């Protein structure tokens, strides 16, 4: 099926002028050149040696870089031109939910009254922020079917660690020392890393031929030493864990808790809620599901929501609606303590609430529906050359395997990913989940159009044909990008982590 309109998400027309290397700030520096302008204060600046012990002062200030404002703008603008982004084109990077980030949210986050509030200002002076956070907590609890939440964790991994400490606190309060956490072999690396930091041993649960948690193996692993299980649902293969009710019952039966890694929440908004599935503790990635931009690696926000039995242990202080209708802070009675230096990545929270308000309950369900529709359309459309690892209806993302392609042509998943860059699309996630051979994980998200998906599929088809006819062309990619494949081994062998480490 070919649609008429030109695809909006294909970035192959992006102009890149020349391919010289961009100098660093330090290479552009000219001693004595300045850009800064500071307020006229009328307060004399005294020599530092009059104010502080001389032996603590540096002989000269730290060497930064000396550039003009004009050159600063040119430099960072050129760097921005060497960067793929959602604003530029489709970014079907699986597990990352790279949907369009509404510009309104940026405007809200920059608003005076939100962006210029000191985090230690008393509650009487920050009623708006407290209200915003309470309202967001309520909305997230409704979406996930949980009783209460903390907004402090800065990202998904921070949420996981917080959630596991809550799990431990819950068991401890019951006089129960448990040492093990169960984690499927399909899980994201942060899950076992967080479990280790919370003092737990990890027991890995295998995946069965359906691509789901192996129920028999899970039952086998369950005993009174199990603190809980961490699950992603839909899982990282993009499949819904159909046995979730049985899993929940089995884990609860031995006294364990269920932790929900919310990285894939986008698939089920308004359709099914983790709380109703039986989960006790969950984190959300606002930088995925709720469209807060990812900033080239962060900031994110990873709020943690819990069921009633874990509420008393939540981090504090917590924004709270008081009886008189105003807002204040309160700390739950058996709180594990703070997990953030202040109150969380608050401007990210403001963006997420804005997104939620624009969509509402009805719009959030449409988000899930269209994300899943797009993923399934793509799954079937590319299935000739890129069969899904599990060929049935998927959720918001599809993992295809390049095993056959590699066997027939020598072209690997990474080559397809690199060649796709030349076609004007960001690569899918490759080699994750680890249990699927030559994995290519596509998450188109709900904000890409049918025309963009068709263009992506056509590009993938072309690459597959090329792999058979001219495999060298594929493995040579990318050639049109600001740099070609980079020497990662060299980077690790001769570490140059700063300008000053160059020899």
């Amino acid at each position, binding site marked *: 099926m070919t649609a008429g309109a030109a695809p909006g998400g294909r970035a192959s027309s992006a102009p890149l002028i020349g391919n010289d290397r961009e100098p660093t700030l330090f290479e552009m520096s000219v001693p004595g050149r300045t850009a800064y302008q500071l307020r006229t204060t009328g307060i004399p600046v005294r020599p530092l040696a009059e104010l502080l012990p001389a032996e603590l002062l540096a002989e000269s200030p730290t060497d930064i870089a000396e550039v003009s404002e004009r050159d600063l703008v040119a430099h960072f603008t050129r760097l921005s031109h060497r960067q793929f982004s959602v604003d530029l084109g489709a970014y079907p990077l699986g597990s990352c939910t790279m949907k369009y980030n509404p510009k309104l949210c940026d405007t809200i986050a920059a608003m005076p009254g939100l962006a210029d509030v000191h985090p230690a200002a008393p509650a009487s002076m920050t009623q708006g922020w407290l209200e915003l956070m309470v309202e967001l907590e309520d909305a997230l609890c409704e979406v996930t079917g949980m009783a209460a939440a903390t907004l402090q964790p800065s990202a998904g991994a921070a949420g996981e660690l917080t959630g596991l400490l809550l799990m431990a606190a819950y068991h401890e309060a019951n006089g129960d020392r448990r040492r093990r956490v169960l984690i499927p072999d399909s899980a994201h*690396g942060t899950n076992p890393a967080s479990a280790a*930091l919370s003092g737990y041993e990890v027991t890995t649960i295998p995946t069965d031929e359906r691509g789901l948690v192996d129920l028999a193996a899970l039952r086998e692993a369950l005993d009174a030493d199990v603190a809980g299980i961490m699950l992603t649902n839909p899982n990282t293969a993009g499949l819904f864990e159909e046995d979730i009710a049985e899993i929940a019952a089995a884990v609860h039966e031995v006294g364990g808790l269920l932790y929900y890694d919310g990285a894939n929440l986008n698939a089920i908004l308004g359709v099914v809620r983790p709380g109703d599935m039986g989960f006790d503790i969950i984190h959300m990635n606002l930088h995925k599901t709720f469209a807060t931009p990812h900033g080239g690696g962060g900031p994110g926000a990873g709020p943690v929501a819990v069921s009633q039995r874990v509420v008393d242990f939540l981090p504090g202080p917590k924004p709270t609606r008081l009886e008189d209708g105003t807002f204040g802070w309160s700390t739950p009675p058996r709180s594990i303590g703070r997990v953030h230096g202040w109150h969380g990545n608050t401007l990210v929270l403001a963006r997420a609430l804005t997104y939620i308000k624009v969509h509402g309950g009805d719009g959030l369900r449409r988000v899930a529906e269209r994300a899943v529709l797009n993923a399934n359309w793509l799954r079937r459309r590319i299935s000739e050359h890129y069969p899904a690892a599990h060929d049935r209806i998927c959720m918001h993302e599809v993992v295809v395997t390049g095993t056959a392609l590699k066997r027939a042509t020598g072209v690997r998943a990474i080559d397809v990913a690199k060649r796709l860059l030349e076609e004007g699309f960001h690569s899918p996630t490759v080699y994750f989940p680890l249990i699927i051979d030559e994995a290519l994980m596509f998450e188109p998200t709900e904000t890409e159009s049918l025309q963009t998906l068709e263009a992506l599929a056509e590009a993938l088809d072309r690459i597959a044909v090329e792999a058979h006819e001219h495999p060298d062309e594929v493995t040579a990619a990318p050639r049109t990008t600001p740099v070609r494949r980079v020497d990662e081994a060299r980077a690790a062998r001769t*570490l140059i982590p700063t300008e000053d480490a160059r020899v």
Partner: protein
Amino acid sequence: MPDYMPHTEAEIESMLAFLDLASIDELFDAIPKALQVTGGLAMADGAPEPDVAFEMQRIAAANRGAASRLVCFAGAGAYDHEVPSVVRALAGRGEFVTAYTPYQPEVAQGMLQAIFEFQTLISRLYGLPISNASLYDGAASVTEAINLAVASSKRQGVLLSTGVHPTWRSVVKTFARGTGHEIIEVGLVDGRTDLASVAGREDIGTVVVPQTTFLGTLDDLSAARALCDQLGAVMVVVSDPVLASVLKSPGAMGADVAVGEGQPLGTALSFGGPYLGLFACSAAQVRRLPGRLVGETLDEEGRRAYVTTLRAREQDIRREKATSNVCSNQTLMAVTAAIQLGWLGTSGLAEVAARCISSTRHLAEAVTAIDGVELLLEGVPVARDVAITTPLAGEVLLERLADEGFLGGVALSALVEEGDGSVDPALRERTIVMSATERRTADEVERFTTAMATVIR
């Protein structure tokens, strides 16, 4: 039904037909019906952007304490610095804002080079050869530094100075529940960490001290280094990146690891986040480094290129044996810091530091001329924060000052728990911590002083 999804009804029909499905609901057939939401979520329907913008403006207007409404003399870990239009414009570019982690370096050279420049700047400020690409915030950085130091020293005992920001210490203690590290908090004497109180404790393998305490005083890093040598401990220094430009660097003072809060480098007050965790260390510790690290290399054609490196430390490869669980960090704030530092340059950053120190001294002298207002620590030099005591409870004083148009500081009673070793318990209630950045004027200080004199009387 306003939203950002492009699908027309006709397209949805055709896509479903392509999948041999009769309705959208069939996409969710794998989900047990009994679990599915019926009747929709109990929340309002969506609203058009302008409606939401008005509502968010109402919420913002309810924040009386915003720096646009009250002149800000609050510091204590978050500072009201100049962030010029040029920094906002560049840091707000969609290419930076809407990118993901640089997993495909060929199309992420912009972010990678900017991070490389950031790492260079932090390495210079802290006087240590390695800086990572950022962590969540100062509290996360000090927590990760302790994890590194315990792994390195193989001893669970951690000396934590109470001069380190109180909320960061709370965070450290929360995460120690999981790691089992023994956190030994040490009080302050005359604004310096009471290192003598732990002499000979050989279970301590980590010493965490601030370059400047949250009360503004300067700690004795030479003594901390000597203690580390005696104990064979790893020295972690918490350092304000603005002050670091004019003080002897943590590295020069012998730190193995330096951490800090990067908010003063171009990030607005933001009610506390997203901020920027800074993390630098010696070359000997690089394989224990938490988080991402960008390195310079070459591409296939010999062109200079950047890539994330020493990846075998990270959670996606090492899983439960990783040096840290961090995945998403605060890259956009790191890039913002690089841009802000580029704008300030060598002399600009040094001038900001000098102004903060001078102006805070000016502020302290002005307010202590008021009857009943005194320095918490008489005769002890301070850098960019200063603690004063007044006849009023700190929280009452701040409310009254707000009525006069000022955010007068941070009340210690709201910041430190009762019994904290950082402050004389008898004075905690009546102490506030104040700061004057490079943005405060002589006129503002004068009006503030008059207001304080009035409300105290």
